[in-house]
């Protein structure tokens, strides 16, 4: 009987382990990376130190990402000229898929950087557990907020969070 109970407890612990095994990147320095942008230029996260950085992992095949994308452009238009940068990291395996999707958008703000991670190297490090996943970094490069997926209410939250980080 006692053995059965021990087995049962052990089983529950094993089942519960994945929930605790990944504390995430919250309040930790964002892992550094360098990726090519859509125009073939190398862009490093380290070059944005001193700015609030919004990293968004997205793909053209992901429906919520498609809804989120115009909102991200609007967000960057709002912070035009301020210390805010957006790194939209595309994880499409084919660059052409991203390029085709981007044709829909005529104007993309200068602070909006389109990076390509077709090999999924950076997204693996960030361990994005949903598509899209966004990380908001403070001016020192520390992850302060993480958003999984996209909801209509997110835009309001992003603005509140970015405004708070800009004041710090």
């Amino acid at each position, binding site marked *: 009987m006692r053995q059965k109970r021990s087995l049962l407890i052990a089983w529950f612990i094993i089942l519960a382990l994945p929930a605790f095994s990944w504390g995430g990147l919250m309040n930790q320095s964002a892992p550094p990376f360098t990726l090519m942008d859509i125009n073939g230029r190398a862009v490093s996260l380290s070059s944005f130190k001193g700015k609030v950085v919004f990293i968004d*992992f997205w*793909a053209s*095949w*992901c*429906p919520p990402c498609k809804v989120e994308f115009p909102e991200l452009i609007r967000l960057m238009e709002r912070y035009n000229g301020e210390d805010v940068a957006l790194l939209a990291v595309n*994880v*499409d*395996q084919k660059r052409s898929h991203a390029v085709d999707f981007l044709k829909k958008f005529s104007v993309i703000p200068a602070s909006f950087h389109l990076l390509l991670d077709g090999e*999924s190297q950076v*997204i*693996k490090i960030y361990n*994005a*557990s*949903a*598509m899209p*996943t966004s990380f908001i970094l403070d001016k020192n490069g520390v992850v302060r907020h993480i958003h999984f997926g996209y909801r209509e209410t997110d835009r309001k939250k992003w603005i509140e969070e970015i405004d708070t980080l800009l004041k710090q």
Partner: protein
Amino acid sequence: MKKKAVWLLAAVSLGAALSGCARVKPWEREYLADPIMQFDYNKEEKSVKEHFLGTREGSTGSFGVSGGGCGCN
């Protein structure tokens, strides 16, 4: 002896079934998200197929097809 064989068979079956499981990361779902992976990818073709099947089988239901098997509705 027989009991052991049953347990062994069950264990082997479970092992075989579990080996087919893989956790797909969110960013690896590109091919799964392809519209062609949907059962009703081609809606027109699906509707024709269902109508045809409903007519031939003389049955209704399961697809939401109505009619008595004459193929006229």
